[in-house]
């Protein structure tokens, strides 16, 4: 059987992230009998609150409590984790921006394997763990087999596992601070300065009921007019996926996704958007999703309610005309 299984718990303002219980479920997929340990770092009261929340769900909670972790940067935490995580362990961590910073380097420091952005686990035989991940913007999946005899760091896509419902833990709290700090406070080649909050922009798309959202399929800035016209006819607001912001065709405040805004409209019209998991991660509140895309294999059709295979450059002006017609 594999080594000890850890779940790294992300938290914000004293509240544990939903991924804590998702990753607990993921850990049970690897080994249903596993005694799973939560790993949480932070400082002072906020950390205490988080530990209290998660303790009932886990057998053990390992905490690192230090003022240098009041805002956690990976360069500070990584050496601490490398000191306390036993050889051969399995560490699960939510696949998002913090893991992008922390995990690849942590696997090197632990001399362990690394599997990024896992969406499912297939099986485990001896020291060979088989997992499923996606490549080519989600167009294709792969099975990867990993030798975990030296341990493994696995980043897990959020939303891929249903949270573990039962609270079956003993919740024993173990303070690992002094062990993590043995050898001194890691520092200081990367120093955190501040977080600059995103601007809201002229329209707050997080409050919109109808979103007309445009992606790479629009192809050229000159074509953006057809989107403006449709949005105006429908009485909706315009949002977009990442490539449109990268191209500077719309302001960052219009971007839907994990690195943009989280929206919760009633109706979401996805025009020429392929539907990467980062984009879908920004759509909450189960809106009615209509996807129009010329690629029948676009992942967006998997999650949309209604789909149309069409080139938006041709279809959107027709749709605008039709709506104008019925509105008189």
């Amino acid at each position, binding site marked *: 059987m594999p080594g000890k299984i850890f779940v790294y718990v992300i938290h914000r303002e004293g509240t544990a992230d939903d991924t804590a219980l998702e990753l607990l479920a993921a850990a049970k997929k690897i080994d249903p009998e596993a005694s799973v340990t939560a790993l949480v770092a932070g400082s002072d009261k906020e950390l205490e609150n988080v530990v209290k929340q998660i303790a009932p769900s886990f057998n053990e909670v390992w905490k690192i409590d230090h003022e240098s972790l009041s805002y956690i940067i990976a360069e500070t935490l990584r050496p601490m984790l490398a000191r306390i995580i036993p050889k051969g362990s399995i560490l699960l961590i939510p696949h998002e921006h913090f893991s992008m910073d922390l995990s690849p380097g942590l696997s090197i420091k632990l001399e362990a394997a*690394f599997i990024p952005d896992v969406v499912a686990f297939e099986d485990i035989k001896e020291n060979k763990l088989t997992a499923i991940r996606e490549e080519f913007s989600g167009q294709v999946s792969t099975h990867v087999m990993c030798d975990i005899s030296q341990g493994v760091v696995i980043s897990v896509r959020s939303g891929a596992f249903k949270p573990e419902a039962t609270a079956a833990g003993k919740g024993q709290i173990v303070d690992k601070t002094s062990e993590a700090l043995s050898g001194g406070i890691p520092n200081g080649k990367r120093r955190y300065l501040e977080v600059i909050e995103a601007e809201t922009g002229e329209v707050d798309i997080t409050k919109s009921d109808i979103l007309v959202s445009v992606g790479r399929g629009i192809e050229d800035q000159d074509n953006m007019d057809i989107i403006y016209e449709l949005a105006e006819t429908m009485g909706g607001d315009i949002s977009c996926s990442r490539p449109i912001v990268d191209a500077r065709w719309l302001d960052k405040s219009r971007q839907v996704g994990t690195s*943009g805004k989280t929206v919760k409209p009633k109706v979401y019209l996805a025009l020429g958007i392929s539907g990467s998991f980062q984009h879908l991660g920004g759509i909450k509140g189960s809106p009615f999703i209509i996807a129009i895309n010329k690629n029948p294999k676009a992942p967006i059709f998997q999650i949309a309610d209604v*789909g149309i295979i069409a080139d938006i450059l041709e279809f959107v002006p027709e749709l605008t005309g039709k709506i104008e017609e019925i509105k008189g």
Partner: protein
Amino acid sequence: MEILVCVKRVPDTAENEIIVNRDGTDIEREDLVFSVNEWDNYAVEEAIQIKDKVGGNVTVITVGNDDAEEVVRREMAMGADRGILLCDEAFEGSDGKGIASILKAEIVKGKYDLVLTGAQADDGAGQVGGMLAAMLDWPFASLVNKIEVIDDKKILVGREIAGGNQEINEIDLPCVLSIQTGINEPRYVGIRGIRKVASADIPVHGANDLELSPELVGPAGSLVKRLDFFVPEPGEGAKMLEGNTQEILDKLVEILKSKGGIK
């Protein structure tokens, strides 16, 4: 400043539909359009902009076969000063750690202040930069969307975190950064630019040149192995509207009205 940018030749997913071959061992590569990984292109542009401000050299490097040379040349046409191709049969089948080991071996032979990678490539892993930094014991930041040179010892780095917020850090050189798309607007490369570098010398370094022990790379050095490619069983998915355009429009407008999609 001496800047190294690590790039990769990948199938262009915006241009191609990726299809798995019959026995699931690979994707169909015959008709694919290949280009430089989108993220890497932003990294090269950023390196050139830094060089234009503070001086120095930009070197573009890739691990790959002979075909990979074309992306190095393309990035040199953007304005990079040098290119290096790391190519050896022994490198084939390396996992992310193997690729990082190969790059490290080249980097320690040079004298670089800043190493840039794309935040991710076609496999969506986003791992090589972070591994490389850990192997070199250099500081690292991922998803970088802003770089300002403070002096020859340190830089100011913005990175993209949740909700479109930006985390600002000060980082000592040398360091490794992985670059997010949107950090700049990569310049256009025309035919003339490509012609100018057509005969530029791109040295090829193999395992021996890098004094790289074989057990670190290739299948032998890989803890993670891809077993197959497959297309997951589609779920129920969307209700697809079919028929001629008029019929589709009629149905769609009805749906929009009933769901509150028309004000």
